[in-house]
């Protein structure tokens, strides 16, 4: 694997770009691995990378039923932020953001992380007060870039929002995290895959798990479409299909439902929007940014019913377009280029799981709801830590399955035990 550097770019330029090597291998499965990670999405690949990098565990396989980054890794709106309020989420997502800040160097792969600010619009004095409370909390707990902007500052930074006083929900200010931003989702998958592969991890694509072989409270092997693979320890990181794998292992129900989330990209435009803007009031929910190619990337709510279909319904397209028009009327003539649907692991309190399971050598990484992309580095970091040390670090000790039985839900929205409400 060629290491990327300015010198290498120059050297390959002189050689007609013929000297670049494959970014990762396409190995045949071995009969046995010390650790098998099921799911070659962003979290699975990051976990494999940190197992090798932080813990020196390199006899690792990542099993992916399709191609890496072809699931939710490629079906998101690439937003990274850490403006959470619950203690467990505060520390976890802030750690994730700090990892993002150095990720391109860490991976020697440009993930195009752009800290362009995350602007959450506010529409009433009461909402401004609540935002001030939450963002003060962030400033007191290690996130110095939490700011409250009045209308003057907001108008200066984002002049083309709909500031009309006759709007149904007039904008009165914004809660802003300036270190938040976006990253290039494919580059994150490729960068972690390349980093893991270079440290000895086998990435096995087109390798779907079809059965789980158990011996009492241990998993002995996984049956896959590429043969039987024995495993010392197993990590599930298959957001969207966690329940299916869980039941394959004979473990029953989970506090998770699979719902569909759509996202959209417009035709490329000249630079229009420098930040991530979020609009959420009166039943509307909308977030938008502009990609480096110029496309407006945006999304809204879930499709509201359980689905594994990976394709969205039209009422949500209508709903999201309406929200777009209400804050950015200048988008009215812009054509939609593509839209896609991803299957979300919606948990019963809107927070994830990085935890041990009823089986001794099985570990679970699941329940990422809408928040999976931004969580990628910390999710991989702490899931690898859990698997390597066979005990949860205090950082993720609250992300357990038994928190519901113990009355310790991490319900960021206060929405209650209804998976579809935690968007």
């Amino acid at each position: 694997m060629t290491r990327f550097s300015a010198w290498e770019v120059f050297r390959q330029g002189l050689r007609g770009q013929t000297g670049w090597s494959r970014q990762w291998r396409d190995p045949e499965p071995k009969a046995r691995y010390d650790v098998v990670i099921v799911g070659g999405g962003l979290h699975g690949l990051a976990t494999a990378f940190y197992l090798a990098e932080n813990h020196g565990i390199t006899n690792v396989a990542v099993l992916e039923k399709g191609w890496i980054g072809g699931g939710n890794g490629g079906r998101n709106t690439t937003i990274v932020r850490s403006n959470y309020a619950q203690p467990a989420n505060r520390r976890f997502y802030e750690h994730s953001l700090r990892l993002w800040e150095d990720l391109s160097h860490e991976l020697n792969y440009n993930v195009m992380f752009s800290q362009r600010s995350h602007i959450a619009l506010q529409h009433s004095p009461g909402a401004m007060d609540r935002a001030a409370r939450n963002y003060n909390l962030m400033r007191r707990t290690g996130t110095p870039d939490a700011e409250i902007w009045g209308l003057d500052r907001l108008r200066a930074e984002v002049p083309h929002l709909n500031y009309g006083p006759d709007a149904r929900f007039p904008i009165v200010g914004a809660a802003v995290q300036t270190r938040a931003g976006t990253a290039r989702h494919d580059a994150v998958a490729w960068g972690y895959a390349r980093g893991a592969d270079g440290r000895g991890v086998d990435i096995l694509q087109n390798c779907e798990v079809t059965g789980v072989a158990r011996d009492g409270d241990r998993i002995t092997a996984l049956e896959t479409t590429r043969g039987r693979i024995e495993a010392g320890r197993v990590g599930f990181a298959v957001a969207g299909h966690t329940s299916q794998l869980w039941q394959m292992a004979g473990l029953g129900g989970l506090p998770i439902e699979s719902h569909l989330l759509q996202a959209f990209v417009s035709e490329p435009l000249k630079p229009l929007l420098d930040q991530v803007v979020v609009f959420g009031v009166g039943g509307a929910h909308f977030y938008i940014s502009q990609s480096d190619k110029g496309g407006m990337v945006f999304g809204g709510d879930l499709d509201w019913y359980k689905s594994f279909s990976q394709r969205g319904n039209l009422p949500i397209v209508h709903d999201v377009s309406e929200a777009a028009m209400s804050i950015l009327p200048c988008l009215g003539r812009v054509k939609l280029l593509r839209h896609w649907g991803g299957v979300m692991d919606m948990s019963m309190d809107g927070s994830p799981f990085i935890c041990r399971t009823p089986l001794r050598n099985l570990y679970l990484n699941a329940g990422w709801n809408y928040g999976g992309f931004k969580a990628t580095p910390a999710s991989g970091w702490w899931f690898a830590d859990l698997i390597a040390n066979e005990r949860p670090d205090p950082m993720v000790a609250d992300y357990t399955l038994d928190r519901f039985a113990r009355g310790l839900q991490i319900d960021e929205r206060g929405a209650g035990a209804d998976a579809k409400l935690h968007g």
Partner: protein
Amino acid sequence: MIRLDCPFCGTRDHAEFAYGGDGSVTYPPLDAPTGAWHDAVFLRDNPKGRVVETWHHLHGCRMWLRVERDTVTHEVFSVRPAHPGLAEALE
């Protein structure tokens, strides 16, 4: 667009309905142990394929319905009133 055949109103777009949730859950008696309530409130089988769900005809007759549906193809197999007494009366 999913189309649901409401037994009271006829076939309507799903946008008229509010999704309830998993219709296969049986809630235990009020004096059941905490564990039974934990399982009913929080744990889901979340099948990929045929499921039973509750839907509310919010912008129509406002009746709760029991819908059999496929979560992959979105095909609807049956729509009945959620209240068993009403379902029997209609049949």
